[in-house]
């Protein structure tokens, strides 16, 4: 019964992280990352097993899949533009997803990492529901794969807009696609704040990038 308190504690942690972000207005204070850090520290300090926490917060996790799918709503409004650039989007998303897999797989091989770490690093650019499913199928560690996916999402969504400014990627279609492929749902939510086209393209990138990861990793 006492485990149920983790649900309101999680919501309160996220609310506090949002307040912190608004007060200091720093992109580095990503609310998801701050709340995750605070809750991990709390679990470690109290010795509560993650299984108990996961069970208590399962209603939130169950909503994750449908919420990510709902990010595709802007697609409808931009369907004409997206259809016109279908070939470009396919090439861009495939190149980006290949790069994401290559960086993770090469780094894992160089460092001689255990298979569950290697899989989590290679699938990190896919959205958490996909990386969790891949971990189940390829005998990886679901929690590790989901965690690294979320870290990749936070990294891309936090640094991505300024990074793309710096390397002169300015077209909203290119910016959106890059965020969708590199940082899935978290990046897509960030792009929806930038422009509607970038948000719609990010949703496409998230889907295509996830599909490439899901198709390629079982072959490696």
């Amino acid at each position, binding site marked *: 019964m006492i485990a149920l308190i983790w649900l309101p504690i999680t919501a309160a942690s996220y609310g506090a992280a949002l307040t912190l972000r608004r007060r200091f207005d720093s992109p580095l204070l990503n609310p998801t990352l701050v709340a995750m850090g605070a809750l991990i520290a709390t679990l470690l300090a109290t010795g509560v097993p993650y299984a108990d926490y996961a069970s208590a917060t399962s209603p939130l996790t169950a909503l994750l899949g449908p919420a990510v799918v709902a990010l595709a709503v802007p697609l409808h409004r*931009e369907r004409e533009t997206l259809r*016109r650039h279908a070939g470009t989007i396919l090439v861009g998303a495939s190149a980006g997803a290949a790069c994401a897999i290559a960086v993770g797989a090469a780094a894992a091989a160089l460092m001689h990492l255990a298979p569950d770490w290697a899989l989590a690093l290679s699938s990190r650019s896919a959205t958490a529901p996909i990386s969790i499913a891949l971990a189940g199928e390829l005998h990886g560690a679901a929690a590790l794969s989901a965690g690294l996916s979320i870290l990749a999402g936070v990294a891309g969504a936090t640094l991505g807009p300024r990074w793309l400014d710096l390397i002169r990627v300015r077209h909203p279609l290119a910016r959106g696609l890059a965020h969708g492929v590199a940082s899935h749902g978290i990046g897509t939510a960030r792009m929806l704040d930038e422009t509607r086209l970038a948000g719609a393209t990010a949703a496409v990138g998230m889907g295509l990038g996830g599909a490439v990861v899901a198709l390629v990793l079982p072959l490696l």
Partner: protein
Amino acid sequence: VLGLLFVPAGVGLAQYAGAGPLWLAVLGIVLVGALATLAVTGHVTQLRLGQTGRSGGLRFGETGRSGR
């Protein structure tokens, strides 16, 4: 709200807190990988948009405002 939904899955990393220094390397790979993926996807896409000359009547950086 979407960010909140990702939190419980991310907290699962608590099980790997014992990995210690390995985390520094992994975080570096995640960071570099995200930036590399953004750069490759963004440049390949933008290059193709430029090559085909079909930017859809959109000017770089000022289209599709969400109106938020």
